[in-house]
C-alpha cells in the first residue's frame, strides 16, 4: 500500500518521542519461564538511582513537550522498588504522564492507591492463565491470587489506562476462552495477547512455542473476540502478520522502536524498546546527551534497509513488513523469528 510506506518514511523523519521506557530495576519477585530480560543478573545490576533518570527527563523537557511523552516504569518488576511512588510523583511534577508494567504480585489496594495518588495513569498487569497455569508459568505459587487482586482493583479505576497482557503458550492455548470470561467478569476492557520470541529463558522451552496450527488458531481467536466486542483483544507487536493485518490489531504493523519509542536501560544504555538486543544501543545517559542521541542516531531503527537479507531479501511483503520488529533481530541483524511464515 502506497500510503503505508509513505507513512513509515514520514514517521522515520519526524520520529516524535511518545513513549519512554525506564528499566528501573532488574530485581524480580517471580521466576517466569518465558522471561526475556536478564532478571537473573539482579545481584550484579543495582537499581538505577532516580536522580540519574531525572536528569534525562529534565533534558527531554527542555527539548519536547513532556505531556506528550508517556514514561513507563518497567523491569524486572518495578514494584520491587520501594521508592517507586516517589519516583512517579517527581515524574508527574515534571509534567510527564507515567505508567508501569507489572506482574501485580505487590500491587495490593494500598500500594495501588499510593501510586495513583503519585500520578500513575496507565498500568499493564501480566496474566498467563487461570490459577494453575499462571502459577506454573510464573514459578511462584499464589501469584495468580495476587495478580487477581490487582486486576480487580485496577480495572475499577476509571481514569487509569489499563490492560492485561497474556503470553500464549501450549500450556494455556486451550484455555483462552476461560481466561477471556474471567477477565470480563473482573471488569477488564483491554487484553493484549502475545507469543514468546526466541530470547531469554523461553528461547529453548518447546512448551512455550506454539505450532503453526496453534498460532493460526490464536489469530482466529483474537479475530472472533474483536467481532464479539465484549473485550478489546489484540495481538502484541510480534511482527508483521500478512493476511491478519488490520484484523487482530487496531493499527497496521510498524515497529515503533526508535520512531516514537525509546528506552533507558538499567545500565544507562539508550535504545528502542527494552526487548531489543544490547548491541543495538545507541548511546548511554552517563556519557551522551539523550536528546542528541534521539535526534541524530537511531539510524538502523529508522531505515531497516540493511535487514533486507536472508529470508527478507526476496520477500514480497518487504515494503509493508520492513524486516519485522527490532526485537526479533539477533545481535548481528539476523532474523530470529518470522511469524508470517507460520500463517
Amino acid at each position, binding site marked *: 500500500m502506497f500510503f503505508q510506506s509513505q507513512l513509515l518514511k514520514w514517521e522515520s523523519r519526524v520520529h516524535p518521542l511518545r513513549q519512554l521506557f525506564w528499566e528501573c530495576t532488574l530485581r524480580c519477585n517471580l521466576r517466569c519461564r518465558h522471561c526475556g530480560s536478564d532478571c537473573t543478573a539482579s545481584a550484579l545490576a543495582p537499581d538505577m538511582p532516580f536522580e540519574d533518570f531525572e536528569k534525562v527527563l529534565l533534558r527531554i523537557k527542555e527539548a519536547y513537550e513532556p505531556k506528550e511523552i508517556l514514561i513507563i516504569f518497567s523491569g524486572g518488576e518495578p514494584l520491587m522498588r520501594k521508592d517507586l511512588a516517589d519516583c512517579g510523583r517527581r515524574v508527574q511534577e515534571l509534567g510527564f504522564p507515567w505508567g508501569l508494567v507489572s506482574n501485580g504480585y505487590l500491587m495490593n489496594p494500598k500500594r495501588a492507591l499510593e501510586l495513583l495518588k503519585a500520578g500513575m495513569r496507565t498500568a499493564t498487569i501480566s496474566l498467563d492463565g487461570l490459577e494453575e497455569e499462571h502459577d506454573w508459568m510464573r514459578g511462584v505459587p499464589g501469584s495468580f491470587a495476587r495478580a487477581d487482586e490487582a486486576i480487580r482493583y485496577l480495572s475499577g479505576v476509571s481514569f487509569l489506562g489499563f490492560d492485561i497482557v497474556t503470553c500464549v503458550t501450549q500450556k494455556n492455548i486451550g484455555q483462552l476462552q476461560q481466561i477471556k470470561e474471567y477477565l470480563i467478569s473482573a471488569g477488564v476492557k483491554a487484553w493484549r495477547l502475545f507469543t514468546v520470541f526466541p530470547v531469554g529463558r523461553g528461547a529453548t522451552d518447546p512448551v512455550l512455542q506454539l505450532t503453526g496450527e496453534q498460532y493460526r488458531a490464536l489469530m482466529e481467536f483474537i479475530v472472533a473476540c474483536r467481532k464479539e466486542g465484549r473485550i478489546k483483544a*489484540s495481538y502484541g507487536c510480534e511482527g508483521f502478520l500478512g493476511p491478519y493485518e488490520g484484523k487482530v490489531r487496531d493499527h497496521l504493523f510498524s515497529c515503533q522502536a526508535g520512531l516514537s519509542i525509546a528506552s533507558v536501560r538499567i545500565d544507562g544504555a539508550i535504545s528502542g524498546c527494552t526487548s531489543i538486543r544490547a548491541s543495538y544501543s545507541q548511546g548511554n545517559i552517563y556519557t551522551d546527551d539523550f536528546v542528541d542521541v534521539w535526534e541524530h542516531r537511531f539510524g538502523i531503527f529508522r531505515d531497516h534497509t540493511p535487514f533486507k537479507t536472508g529470508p527478507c531479501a526476496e520477500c514480497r511483503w518487504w515494503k509493508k513488513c520492513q524486516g519485522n520488529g527490532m526485537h526479533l533481530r539477533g545481535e548481528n541483524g539476523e532474523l530470529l523469528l518470522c511469524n508470517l511464515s507460520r500463517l
Partner: protein
Amino acid sequence: MKKAFIRILCLLLGVNVFTACYGPALPPPDQELIQKELEAMQQEQKAWEEQQLQEDEPEEEAETPEQE
C-alpha cells in the same frame, strides 16, 4: 500544515499513527474527575482498614486470657 494533512489522511484511512508496543492508551487528563475518584478510593481504603482493625481486636482479646 503537512503534518496536519498526513494525520487527517491517516484518520481517513483508518490508520492509527504512533500506536506502540505498550498497550494502554492514556485517558484524557480530567483532573477534577481524578481527584474525586481518588478521594472516594481513599475513603474506601480507610474504611476497609478500620474494619480490619475491628475484626482483629476481638481475636486479640480472646487470646489474652489464654496467654495469661
